């Protein structure tokens, strides 16, 4: 039988108490040992592990790491640990199939195999970005939802109430405005003719996140709830509040965790090991039914550096080959470049190809890594790209994926630190017709044809 959330809660109160810094340094020390023991080596010449043996060793190291280091609860400063039989039960008891959305927009989210033919679920949208006003949020969301190559939409945020009052996390304004955003999203997907499609939004606090739920006008049980583990291998009670609400109301829980290259994971090898451990934390501690296994590189504002692709791809592959878990990659979610540029499309493609081929779904939307307070910093065309790439990579073998990814890396790798800023929705779209302006459509088609020639099997 699985450990209940209440047993986990008990362990946050009775586990060993240690200082956070001591826990952080123990991450680094343990990965040094495991990296050697399991002979895990990053080779920049091979951004993807094409045979799976290395990925299996990363998985084993991740299991050993999780059992030895555990999860740190920052609320109580205690470490939550599981025994190996407990962990195996958690992994074995997790679903390998979920149903999300409703009616004709319902989709099945299955465990995906490496190079598998299972359909990846794609939740696009301009994730967590600010919109200038309600009308613009409605318009952009509707534009995204009209595209049938995506299965769901991530929401963003409106920064002002009544165009005047700041929306601030942890205040009543956060609760009011996040609820408002999902109501707009629900109206927008209805207007797009897809009233049952998945919508996701995640507020900074659990209180505001929970306030977004309403079967009639807000988030539904079939949409899921996000519980984000803190980097690296940590949680707070605020994360567990979301889990408690999800469990109480039968809402699918989607967990998310990222290890950090340059952080306490240190190296790409360390980040791959900790990414696996983070995924296991999402299953065992946060009771997630599906889980995002992510990697970020501390000093680069993009999710698709060579090291990130290798570390996340290897961790995903290890999880896919050794479990029946439903895993989310979303590696290409946050390019350094802005919308309306070829580099955005190259970065996004590299990450989403790796995610799909390595046995993952992509449900974390798509937007420029740094948007600041610039509003409407994205268009439905980037969502279409995410969907087209993910679906086009279904069934691709790792050798082909490795070749295409190397081709893409050569296009953007040296431009990540000073990536082109791109343009906002207003400069890239015909707002009346909700269509890309000719210059953006042309750029899109050029990159699509380029990648088709490279072997990406677009469906249309």
């Amino acid at each position, binding site marked *: 039988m699985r450990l209940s959330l209440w047993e986990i809660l008990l362990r946050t109160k009775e586990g060993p108490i240690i200082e*956070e*810094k001591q826990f*952080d*340094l123990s*991450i*680094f020390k343990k990965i040094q040992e495991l990296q050697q023991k399991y002979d895990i080596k990053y080779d920049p010449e091979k951004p993807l592990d094409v045979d799976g043996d290395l990925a299996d060793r990363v998985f084993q190291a991740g299991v050993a790491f999780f059992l030895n280091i555990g999860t740190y609860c*920052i609320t109580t400063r205690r470490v939550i640990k599981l025994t190996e039989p407990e962990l195996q039960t958690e992994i074995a008891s997790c679903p390998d199939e979920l149903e999300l959305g409703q009616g004709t927009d319902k989709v099945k989210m299955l465990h995906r195999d490496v190079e598998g033919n299972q359909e990846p679920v794609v939740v696009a949208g301009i994730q*967590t970005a*600010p919109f200038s006003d309600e009308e613009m949020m409605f318009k952009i969301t509707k534009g995204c939802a009209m595209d049938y190559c995506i299965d769901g939409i991530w929401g963003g*945020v409106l*920064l002002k109430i009544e165009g005047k009052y*700041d*929306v*601030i*996390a*942890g*205040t009543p304004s*956060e609760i009011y405005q996040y609820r408002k955003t999902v109501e707009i999203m629900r109206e927008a997907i209805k207007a797009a003719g897809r009233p049952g499609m998945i919508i996701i939004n995640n*507020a*900074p*606090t659990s209180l505001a996140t929970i306030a977004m739920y309403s079967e009639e006008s807000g988030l539904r049980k079939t949409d899921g709830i996000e519980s984000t583990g*803190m*980097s*690296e291998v940590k949680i*707070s009670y*605020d994360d567990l509040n979301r889990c408690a609400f999800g469990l109480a109301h039968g809402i699918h829980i989607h967990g998310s965790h990222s290890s*950090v290259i*340059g*952080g*306490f994971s*240190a*190296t790409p090898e360390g980040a791959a090991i900790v990414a696996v451990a983070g995924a296991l934390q999402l299953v065992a501690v946060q009771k997630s039914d599906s889980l995002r296994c992510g990697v*970020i590189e*501390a*000093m680069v*504002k993009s999710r698709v550096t060579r090291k990130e692709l290798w570390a996340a791809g290897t961790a995903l592959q290890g999880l896919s080959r050794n479990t029946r878990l439903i895993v989310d990659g979303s590696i290409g979610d946050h390019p350094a470049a802005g919308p309306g540029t070829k580099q955005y499309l190259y970065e996004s493609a590299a990450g989403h190809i790796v995610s799909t081929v390595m046995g993952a779904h992509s449900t974390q939307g798509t937007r420029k*890594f*740094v*948007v*600041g*307070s610039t509003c409407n910093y994205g268009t439905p065309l980037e969502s279409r790209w995410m969907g087209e790439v993910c679906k086009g990579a279904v069934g691709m073998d790792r050798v082909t994926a490795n070749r295409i990814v190397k081709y893409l890396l050569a296009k953007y790798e040296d431009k990540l630190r000073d990536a082109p800023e791109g343009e906002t929705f207003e400069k890239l779209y015909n707002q009346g017709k909700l269509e890309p302006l000719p210059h953006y459509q042309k750029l899109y088609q050029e990159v699509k044809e380029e990648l088709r020639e490279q072997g990406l099997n677009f469906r249309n």
Partner: protein
Amino acid sequence: MEISNLSQEHKGLLDAFRDAIVAIDEDKAREIAENIISETIDPSTAIKYSIADAAIKVGERFDSGEYFLPHLVMAGDLMEAVGAILEKHIPAEKIERKKVIVIGTVQGDMHSVGKNLVATMFKAGGFEVHDMGVDVTSIAFIDKAKEVKADMIALSSLLTTTMPYQKEVIEDLAAMGIRDRFKVMIGGGPVTEVYAHDIGADGYGRDAIEALDEVKKLLI
């Protein structure tokens, strides 16, 4: 005492001291710190020459990708420990006061990675750092800054809906009439230099390395 006035042997000892810190060899660094005292080398010179130089070299190794966050943490701790050994032999009135920085992630925001990195860079760069963690209120920042007589308050925010809390700290300082007592620096994923300027922050760091450069400009 100037470094040029030291014998070659003593200069070699200070070089070895710096190298031990950069290599994060705790036993060796502690042993050499004791030797510096027993050789009657001016401990202030050792701090200014070896520890300050070690901080620069550790930063360079981080910048080049050879060192990571854990190395910065361990090097920072080691600098503090060996610095304390040396300072015991310097008259209190002659100990150079380190610039003090209070840092944290603002209220409502639980993101810690970038803030940890910046805090550790500051410490390894020779500053006294008080890391208040995440989800820190404006009043808590200000109370701490007053308590430790800080020179700077550094505020991290990773969410557009928590960025207003950076502004709130600046506004609260102004309302209390103590804005000019502290430099305020901001950073974080969605934060831009333009925003820093708009809210009246004194400095902005795009990443940990830039943040350290900015702090040096503002405080030294």
